[in-house]
């Protein structure tokens, strides 16, 4: 056999072998979960119901993949500082972090990794079992920046109305379905010194998300272009009417000192029976129904966000998981994301904590059996609204918006001026911030 022929035969054989090998790999759709065996992952998490729910499941992942997972969780403010310092410096301590609306900043600065290539790679994610289409559209859209996937949603929430069935029955008040009924009910249920008529967040940064839902329901908009904001429009007459209502509810039927109320004060007050109604994110149900922390567990009714003149637009939000660009174990991190956000794990989290971002979780009989059916219906209904804008504006200067816009809402609650005056001054400031390079 001539050397040439011998070489040719070797070439053909090896080509055929490798072809067969790759065919076998693709046809089986088998993800090799053990491919990053022996590596380590470090997770930076916010103290959140999701973190509590995923923690006991982590050993399953470690067993499946042979990857050792270390998880640190911090109180929200501290977590955000740690995450900022670690990711902006490229230190690479965290492989995976919990992500919120700051995703726009983080993606824009290339601190987090685009995930599309991992999730389309059959070696990492089994697309059929993972079922990306199962994510609720309003949730998965939060993880995308300029069309690219930077975060996978893990926990979703929407504004709903919590109310004390016993107090409403005793006062002969029907469950409010629109804002005017809400105000009338709140005033009627308000007993100064005992129970407040209604709770809403009043602290400046914390009012921003909650009051945005009011602005949309009154036909207002926060910014001109929901995808590329260039000008503040939260000083429109519609928005001013919405904020006037938001402030009026608190001024006429809120608890004393509501001007510095974050969700923490609202939830504690509601748990201790200090208020008759409360509008906030749907995730607080588990804390309010927990008999070890709450004196009102079992007495709560749930309804969707009351409608404004232009409909009911409950704000929605999501927490996501993102991968740090400085991670030294990106394949391991991608495997974790695929496992943690996959159908199976999502269902377990849904059952144990009532958190869901996948349609299959909300439809699951186990989830529907374990949590108040009214709550599931109210949350699902509030999540139906296709909001005109994202839950938090898609701008890099998000914290300045929280401060400026939230400050105007806060000043209105504190009666420092009327809504229109405060919002107009704030919109002018916001435009300067947006114009700044």
């Amino acid at each position, binding site marked *: 056999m001539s050397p040439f022929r011998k070489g040719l035969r070797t070439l053909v054989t090896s080509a055929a072998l490798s072809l067969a090998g790759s065919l076998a790999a693709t046809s089986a759709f088998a993800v090799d979960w053990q491919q990053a065996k022996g590596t380590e992952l470090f997770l930076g998490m916010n103290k959140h119901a999701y973190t509590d729910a995923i923690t006991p499941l982590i050993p399953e992942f470690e067993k499946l993949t042979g990857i050792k997972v270390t998880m640190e969780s911090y109180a929200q403010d501290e977590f955000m500082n740690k995450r900022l310092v670690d990711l902006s410096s490229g230190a690479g301590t965290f492989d995976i972090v919990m992500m919120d609306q700051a995703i726009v*900043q983080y993606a824009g600065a290339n601190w987090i990794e685009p995930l599309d290539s991992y999730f389309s790679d059959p070696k990492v994610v089994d697309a059929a079992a993972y079922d990306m289409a199962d994510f609720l559209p309003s949730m998965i859209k939060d993880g995308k920046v300029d069309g690219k996937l930077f975060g996978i949603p893990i926990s979703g929430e929407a504004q709903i109305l919590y109310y004390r069935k016993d107090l409403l029955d005793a006062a002969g008040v029907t469950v409010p379905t629109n804002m005017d009924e809400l105000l009338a009910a709140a005033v009627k249920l308000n007993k100064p010194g005992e129970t407040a008529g209604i709770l809403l967040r009043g602290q400046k940064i914390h009012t921003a998300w909650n009051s945005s839902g009011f602005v949309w329901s009154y036909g207002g908009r926060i910014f001109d272009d929901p995808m590329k904001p260039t000008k503040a429009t939260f000083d429109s007459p519609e928005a001013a009417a919405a904020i006037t209502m938001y402030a009026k509810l608190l001024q006429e039927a809120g608890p*004393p*000192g509501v001007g510095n109320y974050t969700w923490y004060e609202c939830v504690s007050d509601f748990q201790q029976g200090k208020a008759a109604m409360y509008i906030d994110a749907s995730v607080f149900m588990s804390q309010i129904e927990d008999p070890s922390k709450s004196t009102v567990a079992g007495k709560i009714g749930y309804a969707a966000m009351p409608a404004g003149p232009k409909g009911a637009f409950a704000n929605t939000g999501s927490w996501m998981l993102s991968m740090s660009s400085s991670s030294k174990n990106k394949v391991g991190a991608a495997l974790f994301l695929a496992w943690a956000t996959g159908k199976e794990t999502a269902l377990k989290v849904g059952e144990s904590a009532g958190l869901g971002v996948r349609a299959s979780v909300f439809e699951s009989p186990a989830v529907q059996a374990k949590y108040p059916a009214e709550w599931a219906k109210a949350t699902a209904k509030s999540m139906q609204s296709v909001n005109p804008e994202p839950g938090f504006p898609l701008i890099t*200067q998000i914290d*300045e918006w929280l401060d400026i816009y939230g400050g105007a809402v806060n000043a209105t609650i504190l009666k420092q001026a009327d809504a229109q005056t405060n919002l107009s001054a704030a919109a002018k400031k916001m435009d300067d911030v947006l114009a700044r390079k």
Partner: protein
Amino acid sequence: MPRPVAALRQWLLPASFLAPALIVLVAINVVPLFYTVTTSFEDYYLPKVASRHFNGLGNYAELLADDRFWGALGRTLLFVTVALAIEVALGFGVALMLIRQKRLVGLLRGFILLPIIITPIAVTFVWRLMFSPTLGLLNYFLSFIGLGPLEWIYSPEQAMPALILVEIWQHTPELMLIIFTGLLTLPKEVIEAAVVDGARASQIFFAIKLPLLRPILMVGVLFRTIDLFKTFDLFYILTRGGPGVSTETLAVYTYTVGFSFLRLGYGSALALVLFLIILAASFLIVRWGDVRLG
């Protein structure tokens, strides 16, 4: 040529002993300070690192026109002067009482020093719980004597006094300790001579004890002033500068601009202004108070 070698040796030996300390000092003090100074002359927005550039006095010009800065400066001065005045007065009062105490001095001193020993962050969280208008312990106790409910840190008017209250509770013992130690070192003969000459208690205090104590007292005042200007943990945990901006001091505003708004250039300029104010205040106290440093 023996002389230059000897001179070199004479210089090298002490230098090699000093070098480690100096290198550490430069690395952790001088370099960051220098970096803050240069950053304060830059337009530096963290999410847009690429467009970071020198902009001269731009940040300082913005600062002069920034109402929020002036408001924060005013609140800082109010917080520092009121808290300091009360802490000095209370510190004196407690120290003078303690020095007359014959028995259980050690035990009492231990109790008085408790607020310094407890972790500040943890104890501030406890204060936050106590301040709650609806569920807090303070309003619960006030209700027994027919007062309240007060809104404490939840109202724009009451928030600053409430913060000063916590600050005084936490840090008066420091001044008390310094004054107490100072009183112990006063020469007895002078005071006895004054008593023999028929001086009244108030005369002894203002004409003898106070002047003799001044250098020691002023060291305490200096430390407290620097600390008060920089106070951050208290504000961060209790109010975050709110409601509105009613408790936003320079330290809080600097943090917000730097770490929330991510405007590191402007934040550095604010930090530097705060630094210069503290430097000026310290200089005045050292000069006026006759403090001997080292």
